[in-house]
């Protein structure tokens, strides 16, 4: 007995020592909110903080790295971050189009269809940023079973204005570079979710993560997963794994009502807590101006949110919201964001076309928005044909601060950035002529006739630069402070490029061989044949 007490004390003191050295912290959260069109948005966020750690400095890449001893931090991801000295990393894999008009702004801003990867990396040392970027792509492709390896130089840009670091960059005087690439044709499915779940300390076996049931998640109207690594100067390195989905309780319910519960949405309940989670919270946004009941009773509750501390409430936990008075849900369609964007590619020919955007300001006040296109060289802009119209009237003065890096065929994509001014309650038409290039025979992907997916354009609504105007008008001020400097992604486009007949090389071989053989035969005949004059007439007469 005495011995065990002693050893317990000993382990306790050693334990505190270990905690003091480098502690790690894991927090999990589930945010559920009803969307205006009756859908249910769920956002899982699992963040692991490695306290006191700093990203690896690129100049130390040549020398022996320190041992990587992790408790909660995912080792597989930590190895990649250190191997390529990545300071900040964002990877999102999404399926479906986020419908801003119906659903408003998402909880996680990165909702572009397909795969999007961007990273901030320090410069210096013997290994260049580009070769580390290549290694990072390939390592993440292997880790998440995604074809991120195709995010090559032909898709990589550096739009620093739109993709500012979300954390801090160590050593303020060191220079950092951004690499950004999107792959809209990436399909997200269970082979990406499985490695994602393996990075969580409790996998999908306990705690909030146990709700991540692939059968239900991939049945959702929209779903996407994200990995976000950032460095926080005061705290350390943070890895946040996020999963976001939009469920349709109306579609699932037989009586077409919006009532939902965890067991109905995820087909699972929370049976056990994750033993290493410091906090494990479910926040439910409550319906406003409606009659509803929420069960079981939450840990804390205010007007807008009901909060469940998973460790404290009884298990199994099955949160549900019931609207007893609602019989049949009526859809309500009204734009939910400050601006609405539609982007189309017009023109039927395989040579030229026109890129058209309609941007609608849904507010009574003037707004500004940043506009970013990172276009692979599969579509080449005629920048001089970029024109803005409002109700058929040319308004080119509304497009300002255009910066453009032209594409290099087979090498690098185009980068177009501009600032658009949107007058109140109007729709701005933006058109630009484009040309579609010819691709080399080997550059076509399998199933070439399907066409190529083009990455989404990104819009960033922001406050007007004219500060005095904003201050003078309280309504304007309120709206603009509400305009989060969040990125809005347009849906992806599909471009139809001229595709060759893929049996062409053999046809060419056969054809040219036939021609050569014919010419050869003619010349050969002329050279070797003997010509004689046959006097037919003389003989007969």
């Amino acid at each position, binding site marked *: 007995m005495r011995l065990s007490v002693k050893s317990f004390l*000993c382990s306790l003191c050693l334990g505190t020592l270990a905690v003091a050295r480098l502690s790690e912290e894991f927090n999990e959260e589930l945010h559920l909110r009803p969307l205006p069109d009756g859908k249910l948005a769920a956002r899982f966020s699992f963040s692991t903080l490695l306290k006191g750690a700093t990203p690896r400095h690129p100049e130390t890449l040549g020398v022996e790295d320190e041992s990587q001893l992790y408790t909660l931090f995912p080792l*597989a991801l930590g*190895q990649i971050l250190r191997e390529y000295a990545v300071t900040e990393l964002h990877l999102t894999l999404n399926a479906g189009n986020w419908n801003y008009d119906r659903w408003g702004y998402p909880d996680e801003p990165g909702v572009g269809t397909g795969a999007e990867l961007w990273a901030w990396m320090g410069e210096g040392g013997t290994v260049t940023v580009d070769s580390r970027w290549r290694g990072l792509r390939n390592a993440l492709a*292997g880790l998440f079973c995604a074809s991120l390896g195709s995010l090559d130089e032909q898709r990589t840009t550096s739009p620093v204005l739109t993709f500012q670091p979300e954390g801090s960059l160590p050593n303020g005087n060191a220079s950092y570079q951004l690499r950004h690439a999107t792959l809209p044709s990436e399909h997200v499915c269970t082979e990406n979710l499985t490695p994602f779940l393996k990075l969580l300390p409790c996998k999908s076996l306990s705690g909030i993560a146990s709700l991540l049931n692939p059968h239900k998640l991939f049945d959702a109207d929209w779903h996407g997963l994200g990995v976000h690594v950032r460095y926080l100067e005061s705290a350390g390195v943070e890895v946040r794994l996020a999963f976001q989905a939009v469920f349709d309780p109306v579609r699932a319910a037989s009586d077409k009502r919006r009532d939902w519960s965890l067991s109905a949405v995820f087909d699972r309940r929370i049976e056990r807590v994750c033993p290493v989670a410091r906090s494990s919270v479910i926040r439910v946004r409550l319906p406003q101006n409606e009659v509803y009941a929420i069960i079981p009773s939450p840990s804390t509750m205010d007007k807008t949110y009901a909060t469940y501390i998973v460790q404290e409430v009884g298990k199994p936990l099955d949160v549900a919201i019931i609207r007893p008075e609602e019989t049949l849900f009526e859809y309500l369609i009204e734009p939910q964001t400050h601006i609405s964007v539609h982007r189309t590619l017009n023109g039927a020919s395989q040579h030229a076309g026109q890129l058209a955007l309609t941007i609608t300001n849904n507010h009574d006040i003037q707004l500004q928005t940043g506009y970013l296109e990172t276009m692979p060289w599969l579509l080449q802009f005629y920048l001089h044909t970029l024109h803005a119209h409002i109700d058929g009237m040319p308004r080119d003065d509304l497009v300002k601060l255009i910066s453009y890096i032209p594409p290099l065929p087979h090498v690098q994509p185009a980068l177009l950035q501009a600032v658009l001014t949107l007058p109140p309650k109007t729709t701005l038409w933006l058109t630009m002529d484009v040309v579609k290039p010819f691709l080399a025979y080997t550059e076509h992907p399998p199933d070439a006739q399907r066409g190529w997916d083009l990455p989404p354009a990104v819009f960033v609504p922001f406050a007007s630069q004219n500060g005095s105007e904003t201050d003078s008008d309280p309504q304007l001020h309120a709206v603009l402070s509400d305009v989060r400097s969040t990125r809005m992604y347009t849906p992806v486009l599909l471009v139809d490029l001229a595709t060759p007949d893929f049996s062409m090389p053999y046809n060419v071989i056969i054809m040219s061989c036939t021609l050569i053989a014919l010419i050869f035969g003619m010349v050969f005949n002329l050279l070797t044949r003997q010509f004689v004059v046959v006097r037919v007439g003389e003989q007969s007469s």
Partner: protein
Amino acid sequence: MDAVSKPALAFESAFTRRSIIASYFLVIFLALPLWWKTTSIERQALPVSRVYAATGRELAFPIHVALDTRNCEVGTDTIVQEVRHHVENNGEFKQNGLSVEVSSATATANDYQVVLRPGTRDPIVDGRKVTVEVAPEHAGVAALQLADTLATLLTPYTSLRSSQAERVVTYSPRYRLAFTLLNEDAAAGNAALSWDVQNALAAQLSPLLERLSVLHNFTIESQVQYHGPLAFEPRALQVGEQIEHGLTPGDLTVFVNSAEWTLSSSVSNDPVLHFVAFIPSSKHSPLRIVDSNGLPTSSNAFILPQWGGIIIHNPQSTGIVPTLAGRPLDTIFATFRQQLSALLGVPELPPHVHARTRGVAGVTDWQLDALVRRRAAENAASAQDTLQSIVRLVAQIEDMPVGEDVKGDVQDALAALDQAYSTAPSSSTEALTFASKAQSVASRAFFNPGMLALLYFPTEHKWAVYAPLFASVTAPLLASLIREVLAWKKERKAKARGPQPVDSQRPKAE
């Protein structure tokens, strides 16, 4: 219809026509080498004779043993003679490439020293010195006993069973050591949430890694997992009052659940050695290893050959331990240390020999030297094998391209191998460095991706492309050739019969 000849056209003579046809064949004949060169694959000549000349060559390590018999009454010269005789008769030395030279000269730093003393205690090793005590009544067999001790110390691998030899990992200059604290199910109670791995590593493993730094570099990583389910259900055992759970030898082979345990390492190609401390869930606790008769054994750890080691940790009391530290963790890491040295092939001291300072590293100079010699010999042999495989493969597959880089690698490997042979007598560690370089360069040549290129574009393919051109061009050429030959024969016959007008020997144009 009578054709009227037109001798005015000079080029329509038989000679001109034949020259034209001949020139076509001449062009084809001259173009053949060019065509051959442009369509053939690059096959550099490999130094085949040098590769085969290296076959069977072994590293030779001369070993100096200084015999100190000052404390003994036996005559130095006689005992040196006798030990020499026994050593020469012992085949094990020669098998391992050792040429042992016994003398009574004073030992230098790199020599092995044997001190003979009267007494009855077991031999004691200290550095490169071994003190052998011989009871006065056994003085007659002292030399034999000495030679035996030397044999077990210098060539410890000959007595190794094959099962032990197979678990040793193949040589690599760098290993990743991945330590995992694996809870079967932390949410069900009975778990350790973290471990004080830093201190345990420093206390238990660092000295050994330091000692082995001559051979390998190590990258260390560790993680903790909270859900590591088993892929099978351990069998329940009734032991006294309580239920225990047992792992049969069959279970041990499928113990690692690679689908659920995230153990793999993705960023480097260095081989990984896994060390897993497994804490069974409260449902399977305590978990014991049972023998083939189903009886629990005292052992709680096992080695998976070439993969790593696993220890099953049944805590004293069930429940959640915030941090695993102190004595239980030290025990775990002491086991990991033994498993690591077994996996790396560190020989054990013979049971009757003791080390003076056991230390934590626990590896004496004799053991380390034997390991270095063995790894050097192993690498040299495997480099030779790889080189021969390349040569055989290239000879066997005629379509395989052999680029400049493959040739360069093969030459580099041979050069490194030669250096290994020449440095072995002076320094076994340098020989190891060169042998390991030879091995890595040779395997790089073997796995050169350029050697696969033509497997996807076979010769048949080439013929398929050229046939449409060649077939249609060859047909008229051959036809005209046959026609000319026939005409020429006819002409000769006609000449033999007598002079005749030779205007139109050929069939007339119609």
